Structure formats: structure tokens, C-alpha cells
């Protein structure tokens, strides 16, 4: 089976976020870059599928040069090869354009059966790109797949969580799924596998290799002003919380009579201080 995983590199969620001097992006000095966590679930699912049915896993990513590290991490987990669509302009390119360009490169791969990607990219918090990628590839999609119940050469059966319940769906391959957390347990890459990953082939693609005319977009679409949407300002608001913490007399938990007292104090604060009752 030929499996493609579309991955992105993002900054670490735990990272302190500050605004850059230009005011329209996040400061990325001293930032730790990681493989988008939801893409890790996608990579793991792809590798498990390969282990079950045989075949290969190809990792595709669009981004600046440092993005190769995210591809290498997926290769270290067990993917076989990569495609790195490389340009700094992708940092300011919207999901619509990234989906179109990634799709055009994936279409160059013959016989793709199954495409996976994370449900969300954690830095810009967008859930669109995977679904738009499915549209550009002309593939059906199932998003938020909490479990792949069954997969064979022809179809997948997926469990998907929805509001008010869950649903099991079936779709013929080739198809695309987006992966939430708790779908599986992504494996750690061992040191030998990290070393092996450095030798796995990665095809580098630049904007010169892309036939923009056939995509119906201009080369300027890669970048802020050619995209359909752009970020013009970022703020990092500080919410001051009241920090009124009621503890027991030993500075730990409230015990005995303190329980009733603390509850009464809290209710009074909610009523008179916060005015939310």
C-alpha cells in the first residue's frame, strides 16, 4: 500500500509566545521547532498500517528549509522517504495555497492509496489544511478519526467522534483522514532509527518546480499578499486573574470545618466579587 502523510513543522505549544518586531507574526528567535503533534499521530497510524498491510510511507511537507527536521523525525519513526517543498514564503501562505501545492506534489506520486494528516496545526490552530488537501486531491475525507477500525487494500472503516455520540463510517480508498490525539501512541524514534533516517531519500522541491499555471494560482500566492487571507497583526494579551486561592490552615487542603468555611467564602466571592451568580 502506498501511504502519504502530510506533515508540518510548528513551534512548541509549551513555548512562551511573544510578538515579533514587525507585529504581524510570532517571535521565533530561540524557539524550539517540532513536528506538529497531531501529525505524529498520523505518522504512527501510517506506519502501523504499513506494518499490517505492507507498502511504503512517504512524508510530504511544505515550509522553510528547517522543516526538513520534521520530515527526518517522521523518517526516524519509520517512514520510508520524504518530499520537502521548500520556500520561506510558506510561512505567510494561507491554507488554501498550501493545500493546492502539496496536492500537486502528492499527485506526482503514482498509486497513492491512503493519505493521513493531523487534525490541526497547533501554531496557527487551523483545522482546514487537511480537509482542503483532500479536496485538491479529489479524495473523500473523514476528519477526526478516533480509531481506524478496519483497513484493507480497498477501503477503510473509521470511528469518528461527533457531537452527541460517535459514528462508524466506511469509505473506499484512496481517501484522506485527519488524526486527533488519543488515536494511537506515537512511537519514540530509537537512536539507530534516527541515524538511519539521515540516509533515507528526501526529494527537495522548490517553487521553480511547480507548474503554477496548471494549479490556477500565481507564484505570488506563496506569500502574504498573494494568499486569500493574511495575518496583519498578532497580540499576546495578558489576562490578569484574581488568584484568590483558599487553602487550609496548614497551607494545604481544607479539612474538617474548613471545608464548609471555604465553600461559604467561595460562594460569597462568586456572588459579590465576581457577580456571576
Amino acid at each position: 500500500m502506498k501511504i502519504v502523510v502530510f506533515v508540518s513543522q510548528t513551534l512548541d505549544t509549551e513555548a512562551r509566545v511573544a510578538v515579533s518586531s514587525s507585529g504581524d507574526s510570532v517571535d521565533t528567535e530561540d524557539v524550539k521547532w517540532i513536528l506538529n503533534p497531531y501529525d505524529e499521530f498520523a505518522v504512527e497510524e501510517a506506519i502501523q498500517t504499513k506494518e499490517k498491510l505492507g507498502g511504503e510511507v512517504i512524508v510530504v511537507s511544505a515550509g522553510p528549509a528547517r522543516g526538513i527536521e520534521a520530515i527526518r523525525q517522521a523518517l526516524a519513526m519509520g517512514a520510508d522517504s520524504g518530499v520537502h517543498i521548500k520556500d520561506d514564503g510558506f510561512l505567510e501562505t494561507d491554507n488554501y495555497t498550501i493545500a493546492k501545492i502539496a496536492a500537486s506534489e502528492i499527485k506526482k506520486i503514482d498509486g497513492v492509496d491512503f493519505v493521513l494528516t493531523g487534525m490541526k496545526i497547533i501554531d496557527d490552530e487551523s483545522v482546514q489544511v487537511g480537509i482542503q488537501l483532500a479536496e485538491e486531491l479529489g479524495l473523500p475525507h473523514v476528519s477526526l478519526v478516533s480509531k481506524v477500525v478496519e483497513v484493507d487494500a480497498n477501503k477503510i472503516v473509521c470511528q469518528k467522534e461527533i457531537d452527541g455520540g460517535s459514528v462508524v463510517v466506511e469509505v473506499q480508498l484512496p481517501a484522506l483522514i485527519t488524526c486527533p490525539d488519543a488515536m494511537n501512541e506515537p512511537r519514540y524514534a530509537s537512536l539507530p532509527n534516527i541515524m538511519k533516517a539521515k540516509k533515507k531519500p528526501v526529494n527537495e522541491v522548490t517553487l521553480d518546480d511547480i507548474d503554477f499555471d496548471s494549479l490556477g494560482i500565481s507564484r505570488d500566492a506563496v506569500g502574504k499578499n498573494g494568499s486569500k487571507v493574511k495575518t496583519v497583526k498578532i497580540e499576546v494579551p495578558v489576562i490578569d486573574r484574581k488568584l484568590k486561592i483558599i487553602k487550609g490552615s496548614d497551607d494545604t487542603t481544607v479539612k474538617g470545618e474548613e471545608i464548609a468555611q471555604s465553600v461559604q467564602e467561595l460562594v460569597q466571592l462568586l456572588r459579590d466579587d465576581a457577580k456571576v451568580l
Partner: protein
Amino acid sequence: MSNEIWVIADMKMDGSIRKVTFEALSEAKRSMQSKVGGPLCAVLMGSGVAGNAESLGKYGAEKVYVVDNAHLKDFNPDGYVKALSDLVSKHQPHIVLAGNTAFTEDYIPRVAARTGSGLSMEAIDIGLTDDNRLTVRRYSHSSKAISDIEFNAGNTMMATIRPNTYKEEESPVTPEIVNEQVDISDVDIKVRVVNLETKMSDRPELTEAERVVAGGRGLGSEENFKYIYDLADVLGAAAGATRAAVDAGYCPYDMQVGQTGKAVSPTLYFAVAISGAVQHFSGMGTSKVIVSINKDPETPIFAKSDYAICGDLFEVLPVLSEELKKALAE
């Protein structure tokens, strides 16, 4: 491109229209319609939904496009993608707005890609530039940052709006009903439902609720979530959970609040046995008032709360439910 502003009617499984639709119509009427100049329209898609058209007029919809098609009965996203894409391609509205729900997150991106429309999701505010291009404010970076997005000129501009962002405001008008025939065939429906399990809850919906009581893994079992439900019911609140609690099987996925799962911004959020990790906080950190109950005096969430009790939830919550019942009855 026409100068119409469209608001998609987000439907619940019981056939009623979500509050967020009325919120979006109200805001579009208040801040956009006169500038853009065209009629404010609603788009009603489903099976057997035509009866809802009038209620959309109550909130200002002068025109309601109705697509009534059997293929839309079971909320299969494929059908909605086809219906809305065909409508957008035919009429080329200036702006399309919808509520941000798990369902719209599933089908609207595909409509945007198919029609070449720009899309920005989970708006906490929308607006217009001087030359009537859509602007969107939204959270990014685990809700630590707020981004201002601007659409470049071109095709239809689409945005989804977080529930509870705007106030509903009645502005009654009798809408013109436009029945649209959309061709949705079996070929368009690629994803087949094998099994559907739904469980309706009487409690308010998480993303629409003014108050939320959420529990973490420390509750210890599905049965113990009763402590959360009891407190929620006293407050008339929605019930939520952390990813850890959902993973442990204590409650269903649609109660999950966080980076995956739902983003909520209620007036009052109770975090019970929750440490406040970034992934959870990203889904509720903008709540107006945060109250935590946690037995760990060093728990990180205390540094992000307005009020807290350091105590054993099993001892504190029953007393709290009683006291709140009294306070609310006054």
C-alpha cells in the same frame, strides 16, 4: 460577486437551529449589512427544514435560500459540501458566515477549497475594511495569541464564528424564500455511515453555555463524574472534561475541552481536579471567571484561576453544590 451576506443556518440533530446562527445574523445585520449594501440572507440546508425559514427572518434574514434534499438528512458532510459549493458558485455571495461547530469544521473548508474562497475559522470578532474586505480576529498558538486576519480582494470570503461571541438581537422581517434545487447524487456521497450512536443530553451544549463545570482524571471513574454532573445541574451548566478523563473512559469525547475537543469561553468555568496543562487551558483560558478545585496546593492551575479551593473534590463538591443551590435560590 454579488453584495449579499450569507449566514448558514447551523442545525442540531433535533431539527432546531443553533443559537450561533441567530448570533451571526444579528452581528451581520448590526455591523456589515448596510456597508456591503446587499440583502442579508440565510442559507437553510437539510431534509424537511423549510419550516425554519421564518425564524431566520426574526433575526434579520431578508432572503432565505432553502435546499431541501433527502441526501442531507443524516448530516453527511459530503452532501453539505455539494449543496453549499453549488450555491456559492451560482450566486457568488460577498461573504459567507457560519457558526464554528464540529460539523462546520468538517465541511466548510472543503467548500472554500472547491469554490476558491478564502476562509478563516473560529472568529471571536468579524469586521470589514474600508473597502469591504472581511476581517477576522481569532486565537492562535494554543490560545496564547490573538491574530488579526484580513482577506485579500477576490472571491467570496468565508468565516466561521465561535458560539457565544455575539448577542442575538431581533430585527424581524418576512423573508423572501428562494427554493434551490441542488443535484446531490449517490456519487457525491463517498462516506457511508455504518453505525451511528447518539445520546442526547438535557444539559446545555458546551460551546453555547454561560457556565461550565469540567472534571479531570482525578475524578477516578465514570461513576464519579456524578460529582461534576450534580454541580453542573445546580448551576444550569454544561459538563466538560479533560482529555485525560476522556481517554480514561470516564466520559464521552464530546465533553472534551481543549486544543482537540471544544474551545469554550463561558462566563464561569469550574475546573475540578484539573491541573491546567497548556492543551486544556488552550480550550478554556479565555473564560471570564475561572474557579478551580484541586487537592494539590502546588497545582499550576491555581496561578491561572480567579478563585480556588485547595481541597478534596469528594468532600468539597457536595458542600459547594448545596451552598450554591441556596445562593441561587435567593
